[in-house]
């Protein structure tokens, strides 16, 4: 009899609340007594393929697993590669990188909020968040030429200079976003039903969160002020003034609020970057010198950089490099082993979603069936990123 007490529920991979994974949930009535996420449905072997590609070809590759958050993944890889090459981008490029990273953080957070909304039944929040992603993607498109897959950061700088009129558009977008966040607050974030659904659901206590190693907003919602932008500042972050958003509750609602408040911090950063961006080249002078005079002239005129020919077979010296950056979902960690050939000998990428997948088990045991989507959405779990 005792075995039949529990109902084994297979959720996914085709299920509106599962995303790209299969969840095996054991239910005792409405209570979850066993929870096992079965991931790997989007495992596309990024780490193995990277070993067959040149260093420049890996840039688009690392973006694909985390499509809503490409800029930060691109940035992390570029930083690791620059460490291997022993170069550093010029200051203006550093600011432009920060700019794109923050724009990307905003629209990635909006993506997370929207998915969280639809998971607990608010289709309007989903639509609004996705509608308000568009201005930011439009901005990024103005800067880089692509909607999602920017490939903007290259070793030694960035691909394009700031286009004309960008500052006005960006400021307009920040003002719009601030206005919209107030609307979100009324409709969704502090809607009584939302609060009832999310508060005290899926709690990760402070020491538990540190022990199981979750990252990003999930960690910060549990009261740990860990943000790579402050711990190990990169790009222009040391010169910028912003706060790390921390909440103590550790529940789903706290994670949602962290996301909302981080959008405000990102807006603050974008405003500072637009004001303070220094003049100068956006690509390393020593690389620009390698270009043929004609191409160099053209690049100077259009402000769109061209790769020097050496980039086709970029050969970093033998060695290892690690880098970490704070992507929208948390810390991305890269570890590259070079053997001096044009392809990396070993390429390792640890994504935030992969490190957060462990949180499901701890946050959901003993909760109810309806809490699965509420917690899932709050972790902002993006399966392709986790599976790589």
């Amino acid at each position, binding site marked *: 009899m005792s075995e039949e007490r529990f109902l084994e529920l*297979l959720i996914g991979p085709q299920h509106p609340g599962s995303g790209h994974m299969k969840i095996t949930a054991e239910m005792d009535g409405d209570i979850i007594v066993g929870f096992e996420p079965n991931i790997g449905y989007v495992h596309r072997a990024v780490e193995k393929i990277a070993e067959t590609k040149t260093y420049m070809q890996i840039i688009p590759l690392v973006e694909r697993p985390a499509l809503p958050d490409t800029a930060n993944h691109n940035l992390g890889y570029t930083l690791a590669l620059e460490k291997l090459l022993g170069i550093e981008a010029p200051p203006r490029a550093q600011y432009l990188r920060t700019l794109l990273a923050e724009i990307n953080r905003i629209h990635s957070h909006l993506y997370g909020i929207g998915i969280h909304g639809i998971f*607990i*039944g608010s289709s309007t929040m989903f639509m609004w968040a996705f509608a308000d992603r568009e201005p930011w993607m439009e901005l990024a498109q103005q800067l880089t030429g692509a909607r999602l897959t920017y490939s903007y950061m290259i070793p030694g700088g960035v691909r394009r200079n700031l286009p004309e009129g960008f500052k006005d558009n960006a400021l307009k977008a920040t003002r719009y976003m601030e206005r919209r966040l107030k609307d979100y607050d009324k409709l969704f974030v502090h*809607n009584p*039903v*939302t609060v009832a*659904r999310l508060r005290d659901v899926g709690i990760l206590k402070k020491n538990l969160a540190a022990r199981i190693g979750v990252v990003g907003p999930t960690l910060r919602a549990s009261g740990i002020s860990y943000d790579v932008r402050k711990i190990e500042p990169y790009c222009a972050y040391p010169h910028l003034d912003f706060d790390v958003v921390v909440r103590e509750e550790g529940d789903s609602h706290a994670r949602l609020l962290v996301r909302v408040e981080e959008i405000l911090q990102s807006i603050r950063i974008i405003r500072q970057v637009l004001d303070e961006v220094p003049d100068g080249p956006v690509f390393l002078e020593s690389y620009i010198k390698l270009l043929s005079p004609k191409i160099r002239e053209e690049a100077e005129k259009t402000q769109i950089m061209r790769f020097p020919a050496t980039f086709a077979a970029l050969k970093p010296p033998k060695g290892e490099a690690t880098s970490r950056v704070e992507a929208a979902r948390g810390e991305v960690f890269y570890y590259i082993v070079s053997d001096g050939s044009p392809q990396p000998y070993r390429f390792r990428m640890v994504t935030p979603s992969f490190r957060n997948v462990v949180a499901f088990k701890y946050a959901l045991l003993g909760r109810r069936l309806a809490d699965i989507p509420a917690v899932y959405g709050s972790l902002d779990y993006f399966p392709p990123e986790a599976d790589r």
Partner: protein
Amino acid sequence: MDIIQFLLDLLFSEAVFVPLIFPGLLTLTVVIVVIIWFERKLAAKVQLRYGPLYVFKPLGGIVQLVADLVKFLFAELIVPKGADKRAFLLSPVILFTFSVAPVVAIPLSSGYAAVKSDLTLLIVPALLTLAPIFVLILGWSSDNKFSFIGGLREGYMMMAYETTMFVAVLAMAVTYSSLSLIDIAGKQSNGLWGIVLNPLAAFAFFVAMLMTTARFPFDVTEAESEIVIGPYTEYSGIYFGLCLGASYAKLYVLSLFFAVVFLGGWNPLIWPLNLNPILPGVAVLVKAFLVMLFCVFLRSVYPRFRIDQALQLGWHKLLALSVASVVLALVLIGLGFEVG
């Protein structure tokens, strides 16, 4: 000739005309088509979109649901391997029938009703009680865990909302000291509508109505991110259309009921117009339609409650509220307040 005359008489007799044409099946179909279109358009408006548009552009895609129905009609009907075939195929039909059936007891004017009984106030909720049983059956017969959970949730919700609903109806019966809907509507002719007389009962009934028809924020039986579409998960083709239709039919019937009991029925229309049975009926229909619109509009405002929260609300708050409404009605009567 006699036969034709007989058939015409039969068709226009209230016993046939009411359930089949107005306000029965035919009107219901049109109302469903329009209300779902409105639902999608309204949600789209809130969500900064257009919603269905190109299917018949001059009228803003109003026939979108007709296209969907045609698609469902011609789609393959799949009976899952493990399903109990008879129950699987029969229960949606019965569900739909029982969801529409109460319409016969709702009078649309003082002289226009199929069932001329003194107990119509009770007939409508009583008939509606039968429908959820078939949701349970179809959830069970689908041989799918999500359908099963959905069916169970419907069962739980049924227990929670029906008590409230009946107590609220009882409160209105006390207020009007009558069990006949015609009487009740008649007593509101002085402009004192039920919603003014007993707002507590109106509110409790309205929330119970949201629960029974699975509207937001009590969408727990069809909560898509948890249990796909609940009991209807395995239904394809026109059978899914029937299940969907049943839920809207229920909303329609309850909205008519709400309009008659709480919103004054056909009352704004004055005496000469009352002679034609259709015109007062249209007034009721318009009121019911507005109630339906409000119900479906909630979709774009609220997320959904968890099942335990919905039940808690049903048992703890709403039941208390409905009991309070009975007390209010008794007080009104006790003060010698004569209605109508």
